[in-house]
């Protein structure tokens, strides 16, 4: 099964979770996602998601000048982002539980939200 299709649905949640631990710039967030096991996540997808979450008001952003390279754009989570993270975490947990049950054949009739 192609995990990139699955990732699309949960990338927001994954990125929010990573940034909520610690502020990070694009490539750093990407690295942490991969280190956590999401090896297939695409660079541009992560960067685009960061921009979109920022535009939606879930993240803050600030630029840190670098001595020898281009400026890095850091992202941090804010209150709105934490609320979103909490809601989506709950949604994911229920969804994952439903899928687990479905796949285990135990609660096949449980309604999926």
């Amino acid at each position, binding site marked *: 099964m192609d995990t990139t299709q699955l990732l699309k649905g949960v990338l927001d949640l994954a990125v929010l979770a990573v940034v909520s631990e610690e502020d990070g710039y694009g*490539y750093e967030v990407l690295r942490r996602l991969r280190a956590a096991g999401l090896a297939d996540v695409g*660079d*541009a997808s992560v*960067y*685009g998601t960061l921009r979109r979450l920022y*535009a939606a008001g879930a993240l803050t952003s600030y630029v840190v000048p670098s001595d020898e390279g*281009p400026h890095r754009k850091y992202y941090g989570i804010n209150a709105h982002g934490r609320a979103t993270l909490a809601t989506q975490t709950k949604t994911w947990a229920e969804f994952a539980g439903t899928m687990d049950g479905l796949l285990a054949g135990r609660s096949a009739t449980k309604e999926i939200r």
Partner: protein
Amino acid sequence: MSTPTTRQFPPSGAGGDVPEFLAAVWAQLDDLPADEVAELTGGLEADLTDALADSGGTPAQLYGDPVEYARELRAAAGLPPRDAAGAPGRSRPSAGEQIEELVATARERTGIVLRGLDRQPWWPGLRDLLVVLRPAWWVIRAWVAVQVLYLVFGAGGGGAVRGGLGGLLLLLVAILISAQLGRRAPSPDRRERVLVTVGNVVAVLFLLPVMFSASGPYPEAYGSPQTVNEDYPWAAGLNNGNQAVTNVFPYDAEGRPLTGVQLYDQDGRPLEVAEENRSGFDESTQQSFDLVPGSPEGSAPRWNSFPLQQRLINPDTGQAGPIGPVPLPLTGVPSSAGSATGSVAPTVAPTGTPTTTPTGTPTGTPTTTPTVGPTTTPSRTAVPGATPGPVTTATPSGSR
């Protein structure tokens, strides 16, 4: 090396570096508003650079096609796909799109250059100075715009407005518009931003030409050569500097005045006193006069035969007097009035003791052997008087 506008990135590592890859990505975002693009790609260079530093490859190896990369970036950022009009590999983009692409590329290149400048120790000070000077540019470009308007609408419409209150008002209005355009934040309308950019480029290009044309002495008439000639009469005939020459007094090596010397220029054209200078009024003698060419009898008048002679006009009767020589000039000293004799040789002739000018009328003494005239004329020119026959005397006035 591939350029951003080709949208074809080298498939493998040959020359693929981050700025180039970024430029190709930028080209895929040029349909978006500038602030959105800035938001989307801010920090992207750092991300790519770090990723490459970790993996040790090229952007092409790491990410493949920049077009695909840009598509993924847009999709993840929740932006619409690049519209059909901007998709690669399609029919020719319109002129507007090409301009926008140029502007986007230029802006992206400028960004890279500016970032390089940021590392220079002298740049911050210079940048602050330039920022302070922005209003000056707003005024200058307004002035250029008004000058261009004058040029476009020509002397007829511009001349009436230019000098007066109307010109001042027009300039003030232009400055207000220009300053307002510069002062406020960039417009969200992409077309308007492109227009302003094009306007700035045009203003820079026209600055120097407009400066030169506007500083001319006759502003309401520039660009029309015939008018210039009316205002510069010394453009025709013999001139010394910007002053008309009405006569020429040749001397030989000994400092003796010569007569009947025919003068030609490097192209064999006779050097003649301009027609409008062939008569005049002598301030020192209060005498009107007509200049008379030295010509042999029966031939066409030779206005290049010097010195010219003169015919004084009787102020009472208006009748012309007899032809006589023009007094030799003394450097800085007016010559004695109208006398044909007793003139003094100029001080530039050290060996010349005061010599007398020829008495009598030269036209009455034809000689058969010209001595000076033929040998001093350009070889390419058929010189009148070179053939044996009646010619004006061309001998030094002081006889040997």
